[in-house]
């Protein structure tokens, strides 16, 4: 659906997007994850032909945008990060305009339909100048849905919504995906991406650090598992014999709590428990802490960059 090759954008000396290779499959929800200023919006703008790439190639629906400009644009729905509306129009007029623009059939019915999906149907005759930020965001969503696009590109779709609105948008995303639509969602809010996306691409400082499906990615990032053991009767011997095991990477004792880091290849809790008992220790509780995407994100973007990029590219 979307494929880029060596996509690069420089603003003067700043490289906003750096040699980006992303790949979005038909029918999937792709999360484009990165902190503010990572280059997400710039990437989206290049996809849409609204920023000229400094280098690289883009394919949408398997084609060059320039080749099939109007057809491709018509099959895409874009929700921008911030909503810019014609404030002197009513919601109905606004959507009517875009319905004509995209040559939507049965515009009146369609407008009512999308407005009710974003819960704005009863305010369709109000001027947009009086809309709240969240309402504007939802109206933007309605505009995206209006022409039934095959590819939805949503730039930070939940950024100015209340929890209820976030929920609504999430539902819409799921519904659209169920209809077979492809979604490309950029966000810096991980929890949302985690809930909806099949695959994510992680971008930082313009570079794609990883692109994979979620479970893989988590594994990749968390190449160690942290097991926290509450212990009674700790001795140095426990730590040293644990350290002798191949799968144990580190052992730290603090506040009657033993933190053991192991490799991710298996569940080693039983073995650890056995070693502790053999040295006279008593295990009061044992928790295996799996890494959340949130943490993975932080790890990826801040700490284990070099490690991950190597592995990411290798896989």
């Amino acid at each position: 659906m979307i494929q880029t090759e060596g996509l690069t954008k420089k603003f003067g000396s700043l490289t906003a997007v750096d040699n980006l290779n992303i790949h979005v499959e038909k029918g999937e929800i792709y999360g484009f994850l990165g902190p503010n200023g990572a280059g997400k919006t710039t990437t989206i703008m290049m996809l849409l032909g609204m920023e000229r790439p400094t280098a690289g190639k883009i394919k949408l629906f398997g084609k060059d945008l320039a080749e099939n400009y109007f057809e491709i644009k018509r099959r895409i729905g874009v929700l921008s990060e911030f909503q810019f509306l014609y404030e002197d129009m009513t919601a109905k007029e606004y959507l009517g305009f875009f319905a004509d623009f995209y040559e939507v059939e049965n515009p009146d019915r369609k407008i009512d339909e999308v407005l009710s999906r974003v819960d704005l149907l009863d305010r369709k005759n109000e001027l947009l100048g009086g809309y709240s930020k969240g309402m504007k965001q939802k109206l933007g969503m309605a505009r995206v849905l209006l022409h039934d696009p095959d590819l939805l590109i949503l730039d930070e779709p939940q950024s100015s919504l209340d929890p209820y609105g976030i929920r609504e948008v999430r539902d819409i995303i799921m519904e659209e995906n169920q209809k077979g639509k492809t979604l490309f969602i950029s966000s810096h809010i991980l929890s949302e991406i985690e809930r909806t996306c099949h695959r994510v691409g992680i971008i930082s400082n313009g570079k794609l650090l990883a692109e994979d499906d979620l479970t893989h990615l988590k594994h990749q990032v968390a190449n160690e598992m942290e097991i926290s053991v509450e212990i009674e009767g700790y001795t140095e011997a426990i730590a040293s014999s644990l350290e002798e095991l191949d799968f144990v990477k580190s052992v730290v004792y603090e506040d009657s709590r033993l933190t053991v880091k192991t490799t991710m290849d298996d569940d080693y809790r039983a073995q650890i428990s056995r070693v502790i008992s053999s040295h006279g220790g008593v295990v009061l509780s044992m928790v295996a802490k799996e890494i959340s995407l949130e943490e993975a994100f932080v790890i990826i973007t801040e700490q284990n960059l070099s490690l991950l990029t190597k592995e990411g590219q290798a896989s």
Partner: protein
Amino acid sequence: MRSTILRILVLVMCVLTVAAGVQAAPPQRERQVVYGITPWTGKEYGGTFAPKGIDKIYLLANSNNVINTLETEVYFWPITNEYMANWFESREVVEGRLQVLQDGKEIMVLERQSYNHYYPDGFYAGTSELLIGEEAEKKLQEYRDAIEGYWQAISDYRQAYAEYEQQMSEIIKEVSETGKTYTEDELPKPPEQPTPPVWYATEVTDGFVVNLPVGEYVIRTIDDRGNAIEGTEKKLKVFDKRRTGVGYQIIPESKWTRPVQSDDATQILYMEGSRTMYLKAFHESEYNQHDFLKMTSLEQPLAGEGATSAYMWVHEKEVPSGTKIQVLRGGEVIKEAEYKPYYVKQTPGYALGYEIIEFDPESDEFAGRRPSFEAVKLELGPGSYEIRAVDSSGRVLEGSIRSIRSVNVVPMWQLYLLSLLPLVAGVIVVVRRRRMRGQTAKSVSA
């Protein structure tokens, strides 16, 4: 980028300074070969000349014009912005023939011909004619004879008058001595004073009589061997009128010294209420303004500049006196009036007024007086009219139709009110749009 523009500007300034310096040099007198030009202007003959600095001459098509190759002293007179020639002190004819070329090919070579101007209505009035060759000589001779005859008549008159006075004094003497009475018929009549000839013919001179169809030409003066004399090559544009028509001079009864003029159908005559006016109609021709002004004032380099696309009407001669003016309303002729003489009579009294009355040559009231003007009198009430001129056989003269409209003096507040209508409409629209936001507020609070 900016510095390039600056550099260009500086360069332009330098060039201009030099050019201006050259221009501002004091006027110099210079002997040069010029063309003296006597162009036919459709009404009369004009006079201008083409000095060295002017390389194109303008003449009317299919009419006799005279040009003459002369050497004289020329200078530029900056105060009036024109070239001047010192004809009185230096005027030498440059011998040769005039070669006329078109598209680089010679089309004719003209020899000098003798000519003069004949003014049938006198030098200061009406039109003039150009007479060539023998005709010119003949007319000049006639004129001289006429003048001769006039002087003869004058001396005869003086003699007759002396005789008359003699007779009268004898009669007076006889009456006082004898008391004899004479009836008027028995008294001797005083001799009639002869009038000088009104018409005039100038001395015969010679020049090249140029009569060409419309076109662009080149002229030059060539010597016996056919070589062009230096400084005599000039372009010549021969042009013609664009249209002919009838122009009107309209004399308002209320301000008879301030006539207004309407040259073509676009020039509508507006009046207020009911008006009386006197119309004079002229045959007129329309010329390109640039070409016409160049033709008549070639020695003024600025004449006609910037008017290459403008046209001007030139009144040529008044329509014949049998012409009538018809007034139409809604396509129907409602009135027809003819030329009559009128006399402007001062009304004695406190207000310095006047009265325009019809001139009756038979009436004693006008004895020894002449009419102030001849015109067609129209009295029109409020409304929209058309007028046109018809000749004695009832044919409408081409280009003589004009509109006359009386304006309604609309109170200005009506016009201002009309102007404000869009604003009112706008306010209504905007208020109605605003209501949509108002509904929002209500529905939110509800």
